[in-house]
């Protein structure tokens, strides 16, 4: 059974249709990548899954439950999802440790000692143990994004949403963040990610979806999408992106 089912989702902004009937299945332990030009609807789709945006039609099932029902408790849904943003969005007034333990303590009611112990384990696992007492502005971009990932992991989400998590980083810092995502995949985490890192995408994804103008134009295993795409638009997009890389 799918962990997440997106069925015919539409989203309009000011008369402009950003998502136009998206269908997508995510199985447990699967890594699904969304690729496509800016404005193709990748980020909006992630925000719809996280209920930061309300869908205008269609249905999203998380673990078999309709999360697009207006009667659903959004906090309860979000408790089970982890999201990491392009711009990190760490809380600047809190230490790394407080950023990571905020949700476990205040939402899940984990006692402080226990939450901090678990946070320390996670920070150690991702090479951030020495930074527990630091504030976000004392860290490099790569470190901040790793903390943001740890913060999302701290509540043990059933699904992680990663929205262009390396786009705001210096090329030298991208590798350390991608390394973490690889490790998450090995640990069996289910993830949906949007990315412009095509090499990484090809390497890590079980399924790649090419979004174009609000629809999933093409989806399949990475070998198929990158090696033998069916649509001319997919080929054009990949050619432009890969050429830009070479420059």
């Amino acid at each position: 059974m799918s962990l997440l089912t997106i069925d015919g989702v539409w989203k309009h902004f000011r008369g402009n249709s950003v998502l136009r009937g998206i269908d997508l299945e995510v199985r447990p332990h699967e890594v699904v990548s969304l690729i496509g030009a800016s404005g193709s609807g990748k980020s909006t789709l992630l925000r719809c899954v996280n209920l930061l945006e309300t869908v205008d039609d269609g249905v999203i099932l998380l673990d078999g439950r309709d999360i697009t029902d207006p009667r659903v408790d959004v906090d309860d849904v979000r408790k089970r999802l982890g999201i990491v943003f392009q711009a990190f969005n760490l809380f600047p007034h809190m230490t790394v440790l407080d950023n990571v333990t905020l949700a476990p303590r205040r939402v899940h009611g984990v006692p402080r000692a226990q939450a901090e112990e678990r946070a320390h384990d996670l920070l150690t696992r991702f090479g951030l143990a020495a930074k527990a007492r630091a504030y976000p502005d004392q860290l490099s971009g790569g470190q901040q994004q790793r903390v943001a990932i740890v913060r999302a992991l701290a509540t043990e989400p059933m699904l992680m949403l990663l929205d262009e998590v390396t786009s705001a980083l210096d090329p030298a810092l991208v590798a350390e963040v991608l390394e973490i995502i690889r490790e998450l995949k090995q640990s069996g985490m289910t993830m949906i990610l949007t990315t412009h890192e095509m090499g990484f995408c090809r390497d890590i994804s079980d399924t790649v979806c090419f979004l174009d103008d609000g629809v999933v134009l093409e989806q399949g295993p990475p070998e198929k999408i990158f090696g033998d795409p069916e649509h001319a638009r997919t080929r054009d997009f990949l050619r432009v992106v890969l050429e830009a890389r070479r420059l």
Partner: protein
Amino acid sequence: MPAGVAWVKSDRQRERERVRRSRARRSASIATASTFVFAVLVAVVVTNAPGWPRVREKFFNGEVFADALPDVAAGFLLNIKIFLIAEPCILVVGLLVALARGVRTPAFFPIRALATLYTDVFRGVPTILVIFLIGFGLPGLNLQGVPTDLVTLGIIALTLSYGAYVAEVFRSGIDSIHPSQVAASRSLGLSHAKTLRHVVLPQATRRVVPPLLNDFVSLQKDTALVATLGPLEALRQAQIHVAESFNYTPYLVAALLFILLTIPMARFTDHLAERTRRRRGA
């Protein structure tokens, strides 16, 4: 699904919108009901108080109200006049003082020190004392050219007192503009002054509009403090009527007039804050 498909609203979406509408209706009716219950409760408690008949007679007397209204309203026009003249003066003083506090050239240190001293002193002294000191002290100097008109003196006092607050509001707005904006402007070759004028101040002013409006709501009320000098504004007129009739209803008249003036301003402030919030969210 192929591209170019037009959206046909599904039954599920129709049902969802119906649920949302009914929930919106339900929360609106809960809000109405709880407001009503609260209002009735307050009315019951107040009218059942042992002293209510006496209070109603002394504070809510319709006859005295009608009698005092024309005079108090006429006086209130003076409050509005004081407010309208003081407000632009305060903006100018506040902005100049804020700029003076930001001067970094060593030769102009005295200006900076004076500006700091000014805000320290006038924020420290209660407004009513400033009005007394200016109102009675300044004419006492018998200097040529010093105004003796009480309303003018009141306006000067209010300007000095509020100018200090507004200067601090402007300064915090200027400080809130990120240094990268100054760096970008200076690296285009704009001088410090031009950077302030074209880059920093336009952004800072937009940011400080809500706190400034808040200070102005407060200023509208404080025009009543000028009454202590003697001009026949709303509060003074109300006092006269109270003294004549031994009834406090004229104070209620003055209070209602002040509320009528400040409420639109407060709603306007809310509206601006909401607009800023929406722009950030978009």
